[in-house]
């Protein structure tokens, strides 16, 4: 460095030590804000919600002002942002907790043996059961899986092993991404239009629902399988080629088995995603109150549609049916959660053992 002229420093010097708020400052501020809001609220006769909102605002403004006075502007901004982040979290989680609480508290009282083994056939007064809807949901979703898994998995194999960077592959990849955004009701309309043309106008059947759900499921399967196949080390493919194994066998016997745990996890999650879809089934499967196990003929009930129609058009016994809707919602959530947990467990159990 040649001849450094002593230049005026632009750096604002601060001592290392500076006044800092006590560690418990956020807590203190929270207590004061809560007290102030409650006092104000009680004296003006507010409800709970305004008190909470006011308390929150007092906290946000109070803490950052305090920090600005004692510490400095930067510390104050930091505290403000921190509080905002936590506020956002709380605001986002309150509805979730309310939702889960509502479903569990309203739904659990409906669930009993009759609820799970009866259909709604010939049920006039008093609660019936959702057996027909559970069976419908299982059949329709199974159908969707049977359609989606082979197509999705093979397409993923194409993308990872054959297409790679070809133009067709990048188009498929791009359109698969776009396809993940297709609204479910559009998928339902597509299935309806398809079967209207192929089978006859106004056709409704369970298999149509499977087709509609496949439109939603295939892109998820493709994406997750593709990720999993990409995770298989090139080493393994090369080891197999080096043993004189042809490519297709390498894929079938080495690559796919290695990725299997991840693929199954992905498929399970995809099933969990579509099993709760309502809109397409409303259109293409219709509704019935009897058990129908034949996906190729006649309307088929499903849990989501049962929930929707029990709430929306409960008929002569609204209280009973709405109660059942909450019960069915709880059952549906339990199925979805079980699938999610199953996916995690399968992922763990099936992943290649290292023996360690």
């Amino acid at each position: 460095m040649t001849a450094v002229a002593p230049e005026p420093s632009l750096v604002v010097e601060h001592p290392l030590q500076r006044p800092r708020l006590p560690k418990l400052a956020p807590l203190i501020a929270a207590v004061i804000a809560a007290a102030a809001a409650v006092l104000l609220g009680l004296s003006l006769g507010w409800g709970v919600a305004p008190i909470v909102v006011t308390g929150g605002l007092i906290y946000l403004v109070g803490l950052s002002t305090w920090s600005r006075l004692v510490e400095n502007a930067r510390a104050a901004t930091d505290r403000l942002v921190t509080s905002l982040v936590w506020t956002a979290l709380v605001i986002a989680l309150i509805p979730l907790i309310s939702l889960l609480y509502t479903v569990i508290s309203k739904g659990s009282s409906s669930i009993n043996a009759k609820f799970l083994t009866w259909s709604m056939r010939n049920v006039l007064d008093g609660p019936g059961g959702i057996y027909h809807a559970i069976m419908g949901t299982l059949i329709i979703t199974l159908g969707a899986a049977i359609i989606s898994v082979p197509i999705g998995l093979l397409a993923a194999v194409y993308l990872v092993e054959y297409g790679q960077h070809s133009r067709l592959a990048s188009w498929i990849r791009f359109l698969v991404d776009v396809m993940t955004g297709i609204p479910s009701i559009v998928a339902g309309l597509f299935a309806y239009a398809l079967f209207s043309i192929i089978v006859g106008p106004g056709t409704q059947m369970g298999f149509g629902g499977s087709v509609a759900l496949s439109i939603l499921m295939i892109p998820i399967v493709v994406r997750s399988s593709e990720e999993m196949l990409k995770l298989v080390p090139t080493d393994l493919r090369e080891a197999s080629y080096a043993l004189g194994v042809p490519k297709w066998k390498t894929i079938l016997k080495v690559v796919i088995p290695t990725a299997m745990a991840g693929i199954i996890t992905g498929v399970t999650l995809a099933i969990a995603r579509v099993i709760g879809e309502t809109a397409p089934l409303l259109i293409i499967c219709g509704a019935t109150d009897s058990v129908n196990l034949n996906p190729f003929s006649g309307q088929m009930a499903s849990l989501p549609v049962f929930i929707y129609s029990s709430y929306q058009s409960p008929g002569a016994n609204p209280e009973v049916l709405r109660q059942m809707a909450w019960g069915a919602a709880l059952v549906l959530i339990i199925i979805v959660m079980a699938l999610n947990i199953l996916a995690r467990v399968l992922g763990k159990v099936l992943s290649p053992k290292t023996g360690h």
Partner: protein
Amino acid sequence: MAKSIDVSDLNIYYSDFLAVENVNMTIKARSVTALIGPSGCGKSTFLRTLNRMHEVIPGARVEGKVAVDGQSLYDSAVDPVEVRRMVGMVFQRPNPFPTMSIAENVLAGLRLNNKKLTKSEAADVVERSLQGANLWNEVKDRLGKPGMGLSGGQQQRLCIARAIAVEPQVLLMDEPCSALDPISTSAVEDLIHELKEQYTIVIVTHNMQQAARVSEDTAFFNLAGAGKPGRLIEMNPTKKIFSVPDEEATEAYISGRFG
């Protein structure tokens, strides 16, 4: 069963990038040939042309000739899958198939090629190959356990067992010890000593001492600069290379002045 390899006028490309230029060499049967040189000079690339693994990479191709016992590998009528069965390969990092047990790993090459093996034949192959790879005693009690459960050095020997189970005539090894600790390294080096009785072995190594220890002949590759193709500078008996090499570049490299 081992065979010699003749390479003439070989140019190796990644798409349009000429990675290795104009290689001519003869690799003797039933001996160990070491390939040395600074990083990026094309040792691995060259090695992989000897069993047509190079063309697995999209866009990769070669010009020139590689012949095993006079039979050209790159003739259009030759099936690369058959070439790879004849010329086995062991990689830098041990890569047993994670879904398979130790025994299944050894049998993978045969099984995946549709060989129908009876139980006793299979047991034979497993024992013979693992013994060939000096691993039998360590694993004979847990043949059904996953291959991934072994230590790094054991895994590498498992990979060697897997490679020799299909009874190749040539064995290529790309830095087979660089991921191993010293004890495993010496186990593998011992194994190489034994294997050369039966196989033609070509080994890439970064470790000068290792090259000196295991090989009969050594080929030194170098490259003029980044983006330039690698070239074969000198190939000679290992003793000569490490004492009085023909080329100055070889001398500079071996004495550690660069690389």
